[in-house]
């Protein structure tokens, strides 16, 4: 168990202890929410883990780096950014996927672009965003977010 996992579990346990000492009913309610979201997420957890397993077992590092590695360059970053914008997988699960791609030779910029567009841009929630906040604001936010994601990716590649 690494430090991050220990810390996160420590925070969760401390939080729960405080919650139970303050308001037992509310604490139980949050545990129920936690359980429900955990079970709800399980199938996608398994899907992502199996995809990672197949990816690392069958696709060679050279193939991965050709599409999302240094050789793919700007086109690769833009492509991965677009995939991230359209895909609708829980952000929490994109990190293990990203880690497995990095392990296999994907570039930092491609990974950063993927995670950033995936979280910032919601293609599926866009109609709702337009309805609630208006076309101008929703389109500006999602459009500029894409540009930002690419910029963040390029800066991260330069620094890391």
């Amino acid at each position, binding site marked *: *168990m690494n430090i991050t996992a220990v810390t*996160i579990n420590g925070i969760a346990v401390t939080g729960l202890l405080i919650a139970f000492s303050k308001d037992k009913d509310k604490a139980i309610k*949050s545990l129920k929410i936690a359980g429900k979201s*955990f079970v709800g997420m399980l199938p996608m957890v398994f*899907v992502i883990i199996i995809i*990672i397993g197949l990816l*690392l077992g069958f696709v060679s590092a050279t193939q991965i780096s050709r599409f999302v590695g240094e050789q793919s360059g700007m086109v690769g970053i833009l492509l991965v950014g677009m995939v991230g914008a359209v895909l609708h997988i829980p*952000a929490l699960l994109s990190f293990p996927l990203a880690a497995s791609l990095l392990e296999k030779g994907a570039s930092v910029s491609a990974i950063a672009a993927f995670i950033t567009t995936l979280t910032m841009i919601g293609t599926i929630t866009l109609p709702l965003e337009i309805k609630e906040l208006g076309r101008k604001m929703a389109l500006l936010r999602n459009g*500029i977010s894409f540009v930002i994601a690419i910029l963040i990716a390029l800066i991260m590649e330069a620094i890391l």
Partner: protein
Amino acid sequence: MRDNLKQKRDWILLGIILLIAILLLSIFPDRKGPVINTLWDYFIEMMLILPAVMIILGLFAVWVSKETVVKYLGKTSGLKGIILAIILGALPTGPLYIAFPIAVTLLKKGAKISNIIVFLSAWACIKIPQEMVELQFLGPQFMLLRLSLTIIFVIIMAVFIEKMIEWSENRVATMAS
């Protein structure tokens, strides 16, 4: 109702992926070892943090209500407003579509557009549980650098969008008069 449908779809997807995996591994039995090893490693790593992340999520969902967010974000502006928008957006309180109605309420209450954009973007991509999982899988350097760059650019974008919307509204106003 909607969640049920999504659940069903996810389980069907799992079945399909599982079938593909079994098929591939029976055609190429030599890959079974590495694939199962990877599966197991990632599974353990997920299970070490996911329950804890969900508990933190549940605690915030119950203790920080929409009303709290609206109360704090409706009044403040300037740098303080932006910082508050990031913090409130980053609290693990649910998926993005919950944030839209909150944003509408805030707009009606006269909150600044830049604050709303920062709030929405923080809600989408600076969530505390997300950062925890990112830290676990991609390391502190990657996570901290991406987090700080995201915050900087989100603030720039927010101010820019506010100016754009104000500018276009002014133009409409002068054309009408």
